[in-house]
């Protein structure tokens, strides 16, 4: 164990079928009675805001829904507009229906509402905030790299850090998972593998390891299926869509866990996946595992997580660490086929 162990996750996770139906109850428990829903263009095109509205149909909670115009994080003017809309209409909590930049916008909006619009014009440096913010809910609609459940957000070069930037609630509903380009799926899955693999291998924090172990299992079960069943045309077939939605939700779940791990891995140095993503992050993991094999107390556990108990048991104890690295390499190769062609130096 680490000398001083710390772990904190504000984020409650809800995963599963019809998870959206729980939102009115969850919001009211957070004292959220008038949510402002932000969605992105893919979410709007797929009319997911209607699914959201349906979840609130029998509640007394009115929804305000804003579809953002593009995928970029909010610029100052856009934030000002959202801020005035939020304040004028008297909303009291924020829901981000989407992933990536949308969630950054939601976090910035939360900061702007709670700290005042002047933060948009200030040019101060990085800020560590300790002020509670408004309740925030994150509803991913596709797999991501998990930065939504991390504790930082950037606005035009300024970084804000706060545990209160973690969403209060992350709702992962397979029913609303969108069709996602294959390269994005691969990037998301491999990024999660890198973050979680690094944590299992090197973290002395049992809470981090538990989250990471779950993340790896989710990636292990979902990513190969999604890679082998790309067929985007079939997405419109109800059965095929259902078959893909659940593994997509698994990856979104793993991404949420990755963010929580990122926010709690202060005991890991270096953290190679911090600034890398996708295949580069996964290859950096392999390189790191090989370089620090003898320093990794949890490396053999990776073999169990990526394969199965029988293969784990069949591997002699002295060779389990090597077998674990091989399992990671094999997994990356199976899903992306790049290991032989790309140098695992992390700067590819």
């Amino acid at each position, binding site marked *: *164990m*680490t*000398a*001083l*162990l*710390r*772990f*904190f*996750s*504000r*984020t*409650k*996770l*809800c*995963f*599963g*079928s*019809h*998870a959206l139906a*729980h939102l009115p109850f969850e919001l*009211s*428990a957070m*004292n959220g009675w008038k949510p402002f829903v932000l969605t992105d263009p893919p979410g709007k095109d797929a009319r997911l805001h209607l699914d959201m509205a349906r979840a609130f149909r029998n509640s007394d909670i009115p929804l305000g829904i804003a579809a953002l115009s593009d995928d970029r994080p909010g610029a100052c003017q856009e934030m000002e507009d959202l801020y005035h809309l939020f304040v004028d209409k008297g909303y009291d909590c924020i829901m981000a229906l989407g992933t990536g930049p949308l969630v950054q916008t939601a976090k910035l909006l939360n900061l702007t509402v709670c700290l005042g619009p002047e933060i948009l014009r200030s040019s101060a440096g990085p800020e560590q905030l*300790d002020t509670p913010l408004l309740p925030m809910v994150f509803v991913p609609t596709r797999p991501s790299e998990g930065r939504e459940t991390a504790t930082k957000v950037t606005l035009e070069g300024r970084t804000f850090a706060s545990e209160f930037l973690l969403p209060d609630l992350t709702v992962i509903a397979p029913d609303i998972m969108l069709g996602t380009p294959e390269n994005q799926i691969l990037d998301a899955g491999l990024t999660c593998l890198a973050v979680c693999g690094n944590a299992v291998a090197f973290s002395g924090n*049992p*809470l981090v*390891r*538990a*989250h990471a*172990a*779950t993340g790896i*299992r*989710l990636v*292990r*079960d979902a990513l190969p299926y999604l890679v082998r069943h790309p067929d985007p045309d079939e997405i419109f077939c109800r059965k095929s869509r259902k078959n893909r939605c659940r593994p997509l939700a*698994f990856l979104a779940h793993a991404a949420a*866990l990755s963010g929580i791990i990122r926010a709690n891995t202060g005991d890991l140095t270096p953290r190679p996946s911090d600034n890398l993503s996708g295949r580069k992050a996964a290859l950096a993991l392999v390189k790191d595992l090989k370089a620090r094999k003898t320093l990794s107390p949890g490396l*053999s556990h990776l073999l*169990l997580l990526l394969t199965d*108990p*029988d293969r*784990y*048991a*069949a*591997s002699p*104890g002295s060779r*389990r660490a090597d077998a674990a690295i091989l399992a990671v390499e094999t997994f990356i190769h199976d899903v992306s086929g790049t290991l032989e062609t790309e140098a695992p130096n992390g700067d590819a």
Partner: protein
Amino acid sequence: MEMPEYYEFCGRVNLIAGRDALEQIPDLLASLGTEHPRVITDAGVARAGLVDILLQALGRRITARTIEDAVPPDSDLKTVHTLARRYREKGCNAIIALGGGSVMDTAKAVNILVSESGQDLTAFSGAGALKHRLKPQVAVPTTAATGSEVTLVAVIADPEHGRKLLFTSHFLIPDAAVIDPRMTLSLPPHITAATAMDALSHAIEASICLARNPLSTALAHEAIDLIRCHLLPVITHPADPAGRLALATAAALAGMAFSNSMVGMVHTLGDSVGWVCHVPHGTCMAILLPYGMAYNFHKTQPLLADLLLPLAGEEIFARTPPRDRAQKAIDQVRQMNRRLHHATAGAHAVCLRDVTDRDGKPLVHRHQLPTIAKTALGDGSIFYNPEDLDYDDCLMVLEAAFQGDPLDRSRIRKG
């Protein structure tokens, strides 16, 4: 990976564990915007000098407005109402709970009353009655057992009506749990054994009960691994702070696990034995745990097989054939009980008939088993057990646990 159709997980507590972790409390309280906490504890904790250690760690920045050490082992409504009144009188703005499960539960209940400006605690019993964030609360456990420092539950006795009131809400999860090995160093070996087995029962039941989920299971496995590595060494070397820290952390992990997945028949029966015969909770859990695993064997064999790795370690797991792993996991728990029995010079009982009070008088009598079985049927955790249980089933398990005989699995009616 087994994945439920739907599950929730909430571990919204700032967990800090380590040497001198208590010294982090002033910063924690400052970040929560408070500097006048009230310390709630019990007389035993105060006598052991743990309050003094806490106050020293708080230093000059934080002034504890009052120190209440009147929490009884089974806290009740009267205690809660009295403490809530004093909290208001003293103008406190936070609570530090220093103690075991009863102190934690009392502090949570007091927090309900002072945060909701309520006069009647019973109005908030049940699930989801709380709608608002409570006053800042920091939990400092002095046993490595209940995991109350990270759970969303509080249980308070209502002796007037002969019942226990259950309070469940995410708002009951303390803001911070501070685990410092100094707080458990003085626990005697048999209590260390019983409390660690209590934590083990939380972890094992969390990973096999009906409401299990993958995150709870992963936390439970980490907790089991810590208990396996550190319990017996700590019994032999009680002053080992690293081992103490590991056990207390394991208890918190197990608490977080079962708080998000519930428990099963070990708690169903164990709580009833405690209620009827006044046997310490951890002792009940330790004795009944292998019976609960055996009773559910046919419904949970793959899950039990997975438990062998954290329960026995890599090498035993690797050399045990897959078909034998589940049974081996049960055997490991039995073996752990036997080793603790020897290591504590018999103070750690392995069957119900051997449980005695301080004077050596038996606490559980055979004629009480039917009453215990009837009481068990009213326990909520029965619904989360993988296999159904009725009165006869409860009695069958209790009789085996009374004698210390292995459970005859051929008598289990498979539902």
